[in-house]
């Protein structure tokens, strides 16, 4: 009998469905209040796109916190840096972006997000070695060191790119909307959703189908035992931190294009949201962060339409409700 063949008729691991259904439940509850079907579709599509971008930024943070037990308040700096790196690609290649060629438009977009991920991943290595490594296991110092590191990074960004907002436009092909009846869905939102789904699928594939992924999941639960099995956890830590920083950069670049402008404060703004998402999702859980990102973004969109004043606190309220229901988040990781 094959080692992998034992499971055919055996009990399989069960995944709880209800937490994953919360965004659907929220959408179904909101639909009658929104009223117009076209408005509902537009709000939902926008929420999905926003959710995917938040997920891209937050999934790295949840892995870093879950596995390394590091409270990285410097994560926001990588979000901002990713946005600035996108300008380094888009501004010199403005001709490609404005061209009628779909290939050139997509090429400049891909170049920008790949560059943002690579630069942030590489600088993530520097940040981990200089700022994070000396404070492993010391939460208070981690907070102080990573906040300090992010302030320095922010000031360096101001020094390089100046204090003013830098405008950034999506490539010509991605301007405008797809119109379905009375509903309009921005093309860029569709692309952002697709990129987020690809990132999620990639992460789940790595985490569930590769030994590196198994080690990361095991490390989130019990680092010491992973080491006692003969794996060098410190190397895994660096890899995870670099990947987390790269994802922050990728998400930052996507978000900057979505907003049409870049400023260093984008990092701090989304860092808070990332923390809310990883707490709602369950610390260390990528799947939980995925569901939580969509949930938070949909609630923010519906609340913004139905009760704009409530939208300001909708994320916090969502977190409170989820934690009252499931105190360790939607998909808690054992051992945390």
């Amino acid at each position, binding site marked *: *009998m094959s080692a992998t063949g*034992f499971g055919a008729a055996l009990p*399989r*691991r069960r995944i709880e469905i209800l937490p994953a259904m919360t965004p659907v439940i929220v959408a179904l509850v909101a639909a009658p209040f929104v009223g117009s079907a076209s408005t509902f579709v537009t709000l939902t599509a926008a929420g999905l796109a926003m959710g995917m971008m938040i997920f891209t930024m937050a999934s790295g943070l949840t892995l870093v916190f879950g596995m390394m037990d590091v409270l990285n308040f410097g994560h926001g700096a990588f979000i901002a840096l990713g946005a600035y790196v996108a300008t380094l690609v888009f501004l010199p290649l403005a001709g490609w972006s404005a061209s009628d060629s779909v290939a050139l438009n997509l090429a400049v977009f891909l170049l920008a997000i790949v560059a943002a991920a690579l630069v942030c991943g590489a600088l993530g290595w520097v940040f981990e070695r200089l700022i994070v490594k000396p404070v492993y296991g010391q939460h208070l110092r981690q907070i102080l060191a990573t906040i300090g590191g992010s302030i320095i990074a922010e000031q360096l960004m101001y020094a390089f790119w100046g204090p003013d907002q830098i405008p950034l436009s999506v490539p010509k092909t991605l301007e405008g909307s797809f119109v379905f009846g009375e509903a309009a869905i921005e093309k860029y939102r569709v692309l952002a959703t697709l990129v987020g789904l690809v990132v999620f699928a990639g992460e789940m594939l790595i985490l569930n189908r590769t030994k590196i992924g198994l*080690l990361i999941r095991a490390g989130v*639960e019990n680092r010491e035992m992973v080491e*006692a099995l*003969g794996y*060098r956890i410190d190397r895994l830590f660096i890899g995870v931190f670099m990947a987390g920083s790269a994802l922050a950069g990728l998400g930052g670049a996507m978000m900057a294009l979505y907003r049409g402008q870049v400023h260093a404060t984008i990092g701090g703004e989304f860092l808070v949201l990332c923390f809310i998402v990883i707490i709602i999702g369950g610390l260390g859980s990528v799947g939980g962060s995925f569901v939580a990102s969509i949930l938070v973004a949909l609630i923010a969109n519906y609340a913004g339409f139905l009760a704009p004043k409530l939208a300001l606190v909708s994320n916090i309220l969502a977190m409170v409700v989820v934690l009252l229901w499931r105190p360790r988040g939607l998909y808690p990781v054992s051992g945390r």
Partner: protein
Amino acid sequence: MSASLTLDGVHTHIGRYHILQGVDFDVPGGRTTMLLGRNGAGKTTTLRTIMGLWRASKGRIALGDKALQGLAASDVARLGVGYAPETMAIFSDLTVRENLVLGARDGPLDDKRLDWIFGFFPALKRFWLSRAGSLSGGQKQMLSIARAIVEPRELLLIDEPTKGLAPAIVGSLIECLREIKATGVTILLVEQNFRVAVEVGDEVRVMDNGRVVHRGAMNLLAADESLQNRLLGLSLDSHQ
């Protein structure tokens, strides 16, 4: 035959506490050595210090001619040391299969060895793709030991494997430990259950207050009730 393990004047500090205070003993290659002692004597700390999970502040630890002191736990494991901790430390969110895949550091799972393991612990086969966190306490213990032996090892460090187990499972465990020993593996086993110690142990080392206070053959300790009483505060009869 596997290499022998030697501890020479090993001291371990945890914070401001001086736990191991000059531990000296050897574990002969290919034999099963029981590490006994009252709660708090330093048995678990000894295993963790050998494994590199706590750093020895002084002294020498060697597996054959290879020094272990000062090595990281991953390097100790790569020298062929398997470890099944008292807490079991299975990965609850991973399946039984995934736990064993991680135990097989040097390659894919070996089907023959798996069949051999399933012979002792059939529950692991039954719950192969189940989440390890959903197993019972005894099944988790089986998984912890299976993970430690899923690949051949030079030395096995096992901490209280029978703690909280049903008698039938303890029987399987004893059989498993005997078979592992028969393959020539050196075993250092911390055990509170004296009957199990008598059944599987060749040698015994008794600890008290961070030091080894007795070294000898297990059968001699089993036969000497007054020595048991003096060293462990028990007699075999009281455990029958």
